[in-house]
């Protein structure tokens, strides 16, 4: 219940610059946008913050555009925006596939890519995609803009390099060569948090390199670089699976068991590699 929380305040910035000044001068603030994760923790009583920064109205942060060879996606692009964007469909279809499997339509209409990343759950559906895409997180504070490779963004369970005075303003995704692949395994097709989620890129002809990233199998999203090297080096799928199992560390929790996740992760790797070689 959220009945007795009348000490909470909401800051309503008029622009991104305004929001960044508020973070610098009036923090600590909890940024909010679609609220699809925030309201769950608020209702569970696990949210410590009392001062909130409302980003939802900052329309400029929803833009999806291409500059040169780089796809830029604003942090406030919703999952529905990603699904409908021709640029996303063309350049990073695995992201559209992931967005389609987030929650249900109502969540997709409100949940944002920036929020999925900022929430920092190891089960976030878009995270393996961003890891496999070699995405760059664009962080901005009143003083500076920082670009952090997505694979170094998280430092531990629900921990990231984002400072309290910074906002995730967007993502930059270089061109991806090769075949993209995404699978989510959950309790049901919609409205389920993933037990194992995986994104992969397989070289097509001479273009591209092998990339494999998984979620829900460790404290943070895992880019399985040794498994990638094994597959690229012509290892058997059995050897690649054994390498993968050394790279992940799933736990038993409310959604699944470690053993199930290990078997499913290995099976998904085999499926990815088989699909990659199908004509």
């Amino acid at each position: 219940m959220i009945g007795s929380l009348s000490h909470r305040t909401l800051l309503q910035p008029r622009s991104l610059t305004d929001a960044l000044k508020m973070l610098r001068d009036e923090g600590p603030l909890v940024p909010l946008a679609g609220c699809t994760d925030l309201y769950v923790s608020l209702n569970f009583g696990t949210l410590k913050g009392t001062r909130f920064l409302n980003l939802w109205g900052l329309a400029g942060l929803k833009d999806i555009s291409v500059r040169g060879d780089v796809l830029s996606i604003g942090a406030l692009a919703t999952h529905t925006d990603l699904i409908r964007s021709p640029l996303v469909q063309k350049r990073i279809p695995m992201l559209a596939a992931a967005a389609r499997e987030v929650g249900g339509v109502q969540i997709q209409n409100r949940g944002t890519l920036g929020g999925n990343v900022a929430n920092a759950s190891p089960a976030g559906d878009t995270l393996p995609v961003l890891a496999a895409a070699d995405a760059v997180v664009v962080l901005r504070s009143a003083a500076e803009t920082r670009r952090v490779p997505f694979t170094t963004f998280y430092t531990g369970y629900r921990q990231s390099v984002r400072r309290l005075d910074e906002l995730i303003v967007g993502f930059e995704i270089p061109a991806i060569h090769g075949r993209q692949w995404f699978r989510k395994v959950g309790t049901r097709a919609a409205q389920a948090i993933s037990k194992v989620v995986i994104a992969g890129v397989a070289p097509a002809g001479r273009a591209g390199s092998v990339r494999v990233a998984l979620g829900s199998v460790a404290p943070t999203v895992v880019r399985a670089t040794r498994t990638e090297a094994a597959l690229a080096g012509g290892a058997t799928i059995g050897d690649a699976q054994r390498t993968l199992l050394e790279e992940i560390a799933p736990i038993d929790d409310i959604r699944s068991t470690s053993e199930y996740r290990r078997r499913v992760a290995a099976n998904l790797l085999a499926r990815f590699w088989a699909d990659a070689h199908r004509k």
Partner: protein
Amino acid sequence: MKSAGVTSLATAVTTATVAQAQTGPRLVGPGDVPVTLMVNGKRLELKIEPRVTLLDAIRNRADLTGNKRVCDRGTCGACTMIVDGRTVYSCSTLAIEVQGKQIRTVDGLASANGAMHPVQQAFCDTDGLMCGFCTPGFVVATVAVLEKHPNATRDQISKGLDGNICRCGTFVRIMEAAMKARTVARG
């Protein structure tokens, strides 16, 4: 980002959102603040705390109790409303941030003379409910799907309703109702 602000693609709707974000007070709460909502075509002027959800504002302050508060954490879909043409969980949406938008709830579906919306009628005709708690959300989500796809396929309906859950397990009848309402709506 360099492009922050209104882009060339901005529609009247986004312009309005930006304008609103620029004119409202910068700090709201704690305590009640004025919030104006357009619900089912009527203007509602409320004094509520900024943390109040759209669902609670509409149910508890405006006394429109059609949409139910069930899970209250964005999981079940019983609170589904349509905001500017898109379905949202009103339990996970702040009332204060949907000012200036067109909000539709299950309460506004029937005509003024009391005749049910074709989707509501179809749910009755096919017996598409048991306990009925999820029904308002399912009805609203079905309306949203059929407005978007008047000739919706089973797949489109199933996708459009996948954020709603019925614990009684009436999904087969709900699908039947949606398919039937589609025919009715088409005339």
